[in-house]
């Protein structure tokens, strides 16, 4: 049995919200550096260099990398032998988000009712998914998801006969439509299988994987490589002004599905790709 205290969770969630919005993921910097080398157009190179310069400025000035500091998505893996003391886990996460966005001078981008659109002024509620797992560990994966890229994401129910070619076509079509709107170079999360909702969730989860990690299934790892290359042949390039770097990474997650279906979801993330793992 392990005890985790409400106040500890609030504190760490708060810190991570601030941290991920100001400091760029080191692996992302490596990918951007590589892209600067690969591009041959001056404009594409300059844009990529500006993104690297931007993260320097954010770090020095302690201001967010991007003004869209996102809506918080939390994937929680709660060990069955963990006890949360002092309040509910959801409340702790939301309190941490609220404090982080307040103290970190982050933008509060959440509206209460999606139709009446009044800002909640706390950047809450977060979107929280729970998985109960064996063991004594509480893991929270936090993502600050910007909506320039979220808006360009899409789900489609393919026919099983459309197969892998249908999946490729849909991924390319979605990214082509997104063009420069989603702040390329992007990270692409592809969810294949499950149900309508599961595919979307898989695509989101795919975005939270380590950027250098390929799918453990060699068949899917190869498909990731092939699709990334195809995406980069679209020519959209940095900010949509043409170039070889439309996506920096493409990650696939799958789940078993029904004999009648082949759900596919494409979730797009901008080059800020902000997420952090918290472990208790």
């Amino acid at each position, binding site marked *: 049995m392990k005890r985790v205290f409400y106040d500890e969770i609030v504190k760490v969630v708060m810190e991570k919200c601030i941290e991920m919005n100001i400091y760029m993921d080191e692996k992302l910097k490596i990918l951007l550096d590589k892209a600067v080398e690969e591009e041959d157009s001056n404009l594409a190179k300059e844009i990529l260099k500006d993104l690297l310069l931007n993260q320097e400025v954010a770090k020095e000035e302690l201001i*967010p990398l991007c003004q*869209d500091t996102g809506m918080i998505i939390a994937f929680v893996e709660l060990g069955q032998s963990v006890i949360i003391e002092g309040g509910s886990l959801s409340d702790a996460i939301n309190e941490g988000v609220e404090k982080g966005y307040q103290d970190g*001078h982050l933008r509060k981008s959440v509206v209460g009712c999606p139709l009446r659109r009044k800002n909640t002024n706390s950047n809450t509620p977060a979107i929280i998914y729970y998985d109960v797992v064996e063991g004594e560990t509480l893991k929270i994966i936090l993502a600050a998801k910007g909506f*320039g890229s979220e808006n360009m994401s899409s789900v489609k129910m393919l026919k099983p006969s459309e197969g892998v070619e249908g999946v490729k076509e849909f991924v390319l079509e979605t990214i082509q439509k997104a063009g420069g709107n989603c*702040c390329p170079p992007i990270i692409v999360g592809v969810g294949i299988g499950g149900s309508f909702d599961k595919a979307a969730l898989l695509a989101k989860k795919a975005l939270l994987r380590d950027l250098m990690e390929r799918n453990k299934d060699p068949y899917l790892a190869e498909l990731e490589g092939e699709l990334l290359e195809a995406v980069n042949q679209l020519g959209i390039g940095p*900010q949509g002004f043409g170039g070889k770097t439309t996506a920096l990474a493409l990650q696939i997650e799958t789940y078993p599905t029904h004999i009648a279906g082949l759900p596919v979801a494409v979730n797009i993330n901008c080059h800020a790709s902000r997420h952090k793992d918290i472990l208790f």
Partner: protein
Amino acid sequence: MNIMRISTPLNKDIISGLRAGDKVLISGIIYTARDAAHMRLQELIINNKELPFNLEGEIIYYVGPTPAPPGKIIGSAGPTTSTRMDGIAPLLLEKGLLGMIGKGNRDATVVEAIKKCGGIYFAAIGGAGALISKSIIESEVIAFPELGTEAVRKLKIIDLPVIVAIDNRGVNLYETGPSSYINREKF
């Protein structure tokens, strides 16, 4: 790549000298407005009410900045996706607006309105909000303060870096730029 320096307010001469793909450093006064403020401006125009600022020759920047930390003028202030303003932008161009700063392509009605009104659409780098904030030297909320980050702000800027995305002839860098890199035959 040409680098040009311009000052606001805009006029037809300044705009005629700019071509899609040019890098431009803008100085002077610009106004911020994004989704909610655009709906307010549209409502004011439809009801023949006075606007919070005169649109004549001005530039609107589609941005919702992060709050200014203590001692700073503004927080991170990069562009938001422009296409969400496409339904209202032509009306503002008709009323005298000449420039827009945002990110991403515009729909055909906006390109037409740009050509007709002699306007211009600039792209700032999406995701470079920290870098862009360094060009902003004054910021004042002048309308709709209740909209928070979406309020209309008057910004004083020095050398704000942008790229001409759609020029007054309707040449569109979102179309011409990628065309030489497209290679779909392979797949």
